[in-house]
């Protein structure tokens, strides 16, 4: 059978999402990291929109709009402002060098796909296999959080992870109940604000956002 056009688009967007995840993993500059994050959000909302259109679920339109608003506009803007305020425009230092990270990333993707394979067999809906991509991008973001040394990239990684999850929520399974999505969105928003507060507190206590300063609490 020929795959319907919408599905092709969704798959395309999904692969873009994954690609961006990789790009973030490899990105050294913090500003472009945030840009990438914004693009990822865009792809996300677009795919949500398409899913909404193809499955004619109205609440998905809301969540698409919500995503656009939150992930593409507000959060990147907030992060930009933070970075300007704290002027931390340095390059991102990684704990493990980029190529290794990429390799690990590839392995993760394979792992995720294999893991999701049986599940995608079950799904007869238009969006089979998206779970795998979502899982992959979640794991990649987690990897990125692990490998970054500064606070901001870690947060970006965290948000990217949210993106992956959101993608799973909307595209893979045609949208969670609206209440849930609203709640999730709210949490993400508040979370980002709190992150912001933290940045300032960290800044004023450690006068840098380098997390490696925060290794005092341990059992020795």
């Amino acid at each position, binding site marked *: 059978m020929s795959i319907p056009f919408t599905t092709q688009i969704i798959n395309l967007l999904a692969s873009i999402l994954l690609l961006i995840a990789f790009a973030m993993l490899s990105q050294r500059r913090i500003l472009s990291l945030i840009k990438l994050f914004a693009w990822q959000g865009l792809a996300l909302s677009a795919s949500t929109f398409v899913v909404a259109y193809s499955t004619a679920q109205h609440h998905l339109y809301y969540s698409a709009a919500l995503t656009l608003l939150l992930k593409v506009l507000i959060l990147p803007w907030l992060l930009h402002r933070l970075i300007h305020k704290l002027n931390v425009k340095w390059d991102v230092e990684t*704990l493990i060098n980029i190529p290794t990270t990429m390799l690990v990333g590839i392995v993760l993707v394979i*792992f995720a796909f294999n*893991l999701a394979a049986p599940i995608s067999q079950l799904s007869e809906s238009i969006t089979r296999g998206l779970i795998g991509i979502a899982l992959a991008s979640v*794991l990649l973001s*987690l*990897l990125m959080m*692990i490998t970054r040394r500064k606070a901001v990239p870690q947060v970006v990684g965290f948000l990217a992870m949210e993106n992956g999850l959101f993608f799973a929520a909307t595209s893979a399974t045609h949208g969670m109940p609206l209440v849930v999505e609203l709640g999730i969105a709210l949490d993400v928003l508040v979370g980002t604000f709190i992150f912001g507060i933290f940045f300032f507190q960290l800044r004023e206590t450690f006068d840098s956002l380098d997390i*490696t300063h*925060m290794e*005092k609490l341990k059992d020795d």
Partner: protein
Amino acid sequence: MDAVGILPLDVLGGVILLWLVLGLFGLVLQNTPHLISSIIFPLGAIAALVVAGTGLWALGAAPSIAVLPLGLPDLPLHLRLDPLAAFFLILLGGASFGVSLFSAGYFRSMAGGMLALLCLEYHLFLASMALILVADDAYMFMVAWESMALSSYFLVTTDHAIPDIRKAGFLYLLVAHVGAISILLCFGVMQGGHGIGAYTFAAMREAHLSPFWSSIAFLLALFGFGAKAGVLPLHVWLPEAYPAAPSPVAALLSGVLLKTAIYGILRITFDLLATQLWWWGVLALALGLITAVFGVMFAAVQGDMKRLLAYSSIENAGLLLVGIGLTVIFHVYGKDALAALSLTAALYHCLNHAFFKSLLFIGTGSILHATGERNMGRLGGLIRKMPWAAALMLVGVLSISGLPPFNGFVSEWLLLQAFLLSPGLPNSYINMLIPVAAAVIALAAALAAYVMVKFYGIIFLGQHREKALEQAHDAGIWERIGLTWLAIVCVVLGLAPVFVVQHLDQVTRMLLGHGLGNAAAGWLFLAPVDIERASYSPVIFLSAVLGVMLMTALGVHRFYHGRLRRGPAWNCGFPVQNARMQDTAEGFGQPIRRIFEPFFRIESELPSAFDTHPRYHGRSDDRIWFALYLPIKSLTEKLSSRASLLQHGRIHLYLTYTFATLVVLLAFV
């Protein structure tokens, strides 16, 4: 009596409640300590006497059962008073009667608040021990058991300002807790059926375990209760805790608490477990022998009188375990008469030890009061300063040394008889092993006499080793009463074995379905198996010796004269002699240390012949502590230092843990 509808259990419950109330009342009287010591403790003593009476009553009566509406859902607290429990209640009541009376005098000088707390803990301790004996389900038992441990811990750490005492308390409670967990596991093995209701002893009796699982249960019980009884290698806490505790408490710890452990082993081995295996007996026997010899050996080299008694308690615990092991062997091989004999010996020894050890411990209490000195090396000649204590403790010393016609000898005699009658067991190895075991027992008994001569001689005889002892005063009136009671019971137990054995038969019948009885008609001769085989009559013995003594004394004075002069000691003509020329405690123990050198971890510095200020320093430690406990400690520390590498402080690492956990789980589901 039953016509009235009152069961022994009801009386007992009343007494236990009374104890708790008394304890709380002590808190109220915080500001009038003299009232606590002169009213509460005597009342508690009377209650204890009632407990003993109840036990005596219940020994003959049918088991009485009660269920309290407390405890877990589906598992209300079950109480059951059967002959076994009754016997140990007699022991508890009788011993604690004396100890409580003694305490009334002993704690006189204590500060109000402290005394109030101590009073509470003391009576809580007594009550929980009584509850252990009548508990009829695992939960009740464990609650009482751990309450006993906790209250006794607080009693041990009464003087918690002293770091050593805190350390002792720590060690005590730690070992107690580990033991308790293993007892818990033992109940877990034995539980019958499903649901929370499966933890009643009744259900456990029904649950027929496979030999493997009953062996597991037995081993766990042996471990758990052995830890309380001070069986090797779980004895280390005991010589620390007993000296740390105030003397009356030490008396209860050694006299009664140790017996609750024996009770537990008996209850589980013979009552709750349906079948026994022969090697259990062998194991118990071997452990008991090692413990006995070890204990007495270390007692011989101690310089602190309470430590010495503590080690002697270890020895006696060993002897009790030997008796139990022998019982198991005989029981398994169907020789019930012999099983009854050895069990009787063990129970009899329980009773004896409860009394003479309590007597000796509280005796050390009065010495402590009189002199403030625990180290025997600074005592001496007290028999002239405190004749009461000296006379009464002499009874205890003779009893514990197993000398006729006192009570210690009776149980020793019974035990040796049991050994002698052993041949004819199907297993030839055991046949060979048992006489050797008898030899070891004999050795331990003889060494015990050595230890006690040292104990009494160094403390009471000779010259004062310190000037301060001139001011020593004799025991107070309350203390005297307590000592006297215990001493009298020792003598009675020694002189009326027939009577005691007849009552013990109730217990052996319950546990083994076979009583010992008395082959010899009448009360005069104790003949456990057969008048032809063995018989013993302390009364005749005593009267003969006394008669001869009297005759000689009269004769000598009649035919010659009773003239007597006092003079300085001759001492083989040596002109100077002072108190420092006497043997010290170390000196008296030295031969033992020399003979059994490999068993000690000795460090000593001897002065050279030319020292201007010669000083001698020597201590002999327990090898087991260094060979077993310290390694365990260091192993734990090593492990935990390994573990602490996990908590490394780096958030990346933590994230990696999460990540790894996730990936691993995903990969393996």
